[in-house]
């Protein structure tokens, strides 16, 4: 009953004209950048973060969240029509979706993708709504040792599940913690690594780091490649509604994708990309005709597309309940909430119920908007796909420049963003991942404060992290992740997965 009442309260917040408008803008933008290869939801959210400072926290997060799950809808369009994933989580949709398009069934593929995304997105919001308050009530018992251990375990899992070198991922996490602590020491007030620059006394801004590391660097990486012509199916796309046979083949994969996606999305280091790959693997395994996969099997579209959207709802669970993000994008959203003066965690729901329930309700509304937007507007998205990148990238760069300048009205932020842009570009070239760095950056200040508080409580003894049950469990998990990564005879060579939310 309480949940229903809270949800009604959430709808009363989300259905205000302002919030409806920003939800629409968010899902529309999300679909657009999901369609366009060359920019992903992380870069877009980073770009728009400074603009949201002029809105209320609820409106800002509604819009940014809309971009997140909207991109999952849009990414499948290019996968099916062009065989190029619009964003990382739609890579696996290329395998069967494009083959369906070649067989004249682009409409069925696009339609099933949209419905699967809707079902995955909606059911994951139900999960978010039910699980978050429960998890938050447990988290009220957490103290500084539990938070420190959980955050370290989260970072360890993110690096373990990353696509590249584990050593390098951990290095980036360490560097992210260092960057996150730049500024004034909260206890002594002394300046740390500010180099006499007043703008750095409050620390490095998350928008500056994120826009540079993901926005600017992504553009630079795309510029250095030769831009090729894309072959787009221009034949009239008809029959967007899947037939009875399509539904019969896809229903169970969708339900499986939902559960798998929600669970994987809520794990640190999980997310939409891993969920979509896992779903494809599961469907192929369970299928009576696995030889059809890769040749236009509709289950190969329905399952992964449901899973990647279900993962977006799951990703919000640890962020809201514990204040610990599970991936780069929720790390940026968490940073945004902190900038707004809202602290995610177990006290978010009692103190700011309008934020949590408003966002949950807006996600229901957003999923309906996306279903309505995606099916009739497919021909528009096809036109958008034809816009050459040489016209898109100056606008992306300009948005980054304006966004960085608008933070403090200072060109220092813009210059710092360019420095991070160059760093992000070189990191991509030399095989260092940005995701662990951003996650650690957002958590850096809290990791330091919880470590210091824990050591004060325990009078300098590290055993405090091992005698408290929840902290001990998190530490054990962290050590297990690290040991299994570092021991050569246990660690298998991983197939490189595309980095989550970075196209």
């Amino acid at each position, binding site marked *: 009953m309480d949940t229903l009442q809270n949800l009604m309260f959430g709808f009363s917040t989300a259905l205000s004209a302002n919030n409806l408008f920003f939800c629409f803008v968010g899902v529309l933008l999300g679909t657009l950048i999901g369609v366009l290869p060359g920019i992903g939801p992380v870069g877009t959210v980073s770009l728009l973060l400074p603009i949201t400072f002029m809105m209320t926290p609820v409106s800002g997060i509604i819009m940014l969240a809309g971009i997140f799950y909207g991109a999952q809808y849009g990414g499948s369009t290019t996968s099916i029509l062009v065989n190029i994933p619009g964003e990382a989580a739609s890579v696996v949709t290329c395998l069967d979706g494009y083959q369906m398009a070649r067989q004249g069934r682009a409409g069925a593929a696009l339609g099933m993708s949209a419905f699967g995304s809707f079902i995955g997105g909606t059911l994951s919001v139900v999960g978010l709504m039910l699980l978050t308050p429960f998890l938050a009530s447990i988290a009220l018992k957490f103290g500084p040792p539990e938070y420190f251990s959980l955050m370290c375990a989260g970072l360890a899992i993110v690096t373990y599940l990353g696509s590249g070198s584990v050593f390098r991922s951990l*290095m980036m996490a360490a560097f992210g913690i260092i960057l996150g602590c730049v500024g004034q020491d909260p206890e002594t007030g002394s300046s740390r690594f500010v180099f006499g620059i007043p703008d750095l006394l409050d620390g490095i801004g998350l928008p500056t780091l994120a826009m540079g590391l993901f926005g600017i660097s992504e553009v630079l990486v795309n510029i250095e490649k030769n831009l090729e012509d894309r072959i787009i199916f221009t034949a009239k796309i008809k029959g967007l509604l899947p037939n009875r046979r399509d539904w019969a083949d896809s229903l169970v994969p969708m339900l499986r994708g939902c559960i798998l996606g929600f669970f994987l999305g809520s794990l640190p280091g999980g997310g939409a990309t891993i969920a979509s790959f896992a779903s494809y693997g599961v469907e192929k395994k369970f299928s009576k005709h696995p030889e059809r996969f890769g040749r236009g099997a509709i289950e190969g579209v329905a399952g992964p597309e449901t899973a990647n959207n279900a993962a977006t709802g799951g990703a919000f669970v640890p962020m809201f309940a514990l204040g610990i993000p599970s991936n780069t994008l929720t790390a940026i959203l968490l940073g945004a909430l902190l900038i707004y003066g809202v602290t995610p965690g177990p006290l978010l729901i009692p103190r700011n119920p309008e934020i949590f329930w408003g966002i949950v309700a807006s996600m229901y509304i957003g999923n309906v908007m996306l279903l309505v937007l995606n099916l009739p507007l497919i021909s528009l998205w096809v036109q958008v796909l034809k816009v050459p990148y040489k016209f898109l990238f100056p606008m992306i760069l300009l948005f980054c420049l304006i966004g960085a300048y608008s933070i403090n009205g200072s060109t220092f932020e813009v210059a710092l963003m360019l420095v991070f842009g160059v760093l992000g570009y070189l990191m991509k070239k030399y095989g260092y991942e940005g995701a662990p760095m951003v996650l650690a950056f957002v958590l850096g200040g809290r990791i330091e404060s919880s470590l210091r508080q824990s050591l004060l409580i325990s009078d300098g003894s590290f055993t405090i992290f091992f005698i408290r049950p929840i902290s001990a469990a998190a530490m054990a998990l962290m050590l297990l992740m690290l040991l299994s990564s570092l021991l050569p005879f246990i660690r298998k060579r*991983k197939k490189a997965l595309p980095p989550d939310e970075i196209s």
Partner: protein
Amino acid sequence: MKIHFCIGPLFWFAIGFYILIRAWELGIGEIRHPGPGFIFFFAALFLLILNTLDFVSVLCPSRSTIGPVEGQQGKSLWRGVRWGKVLLVLGGLACYVYFFNFLGFVLGTSLLMLFLLKAVEPTRWRTAIVGSMLITLISYAIFCVWLKVPFPEGFIGF
């Protein structure tokens, strides 16, 4: 041994040692009462240890615990890619930042957009000029007029 295998690790060694030394100067305090440099010192130490392990794995790939990393297959990271274009774009952006307050938003942005539209891919002058003006106009309308972001006016006064 190809030099580009070593660039990354050498860079992080330099960063790590610098942070380690500065953190020590800040003061790491005691275990029971960590000082302002505590987290920096141990994070930098962790960074250096991992970097050493990574460097060893780069030097001895057969005993590596990691998957293949770009550049370890022997391919140069800078051949066959348009790194010159990247430098050109970065140069343009750096000039924009440097002259932003002097030129103002409108003139500075128009010039930057014109430069970017011409610098990377062949574009006709008419298309580039119209495109740069359109982008500047739209961004002025959104950010200055609607969102009221206070951009500098520059020497031309708007």
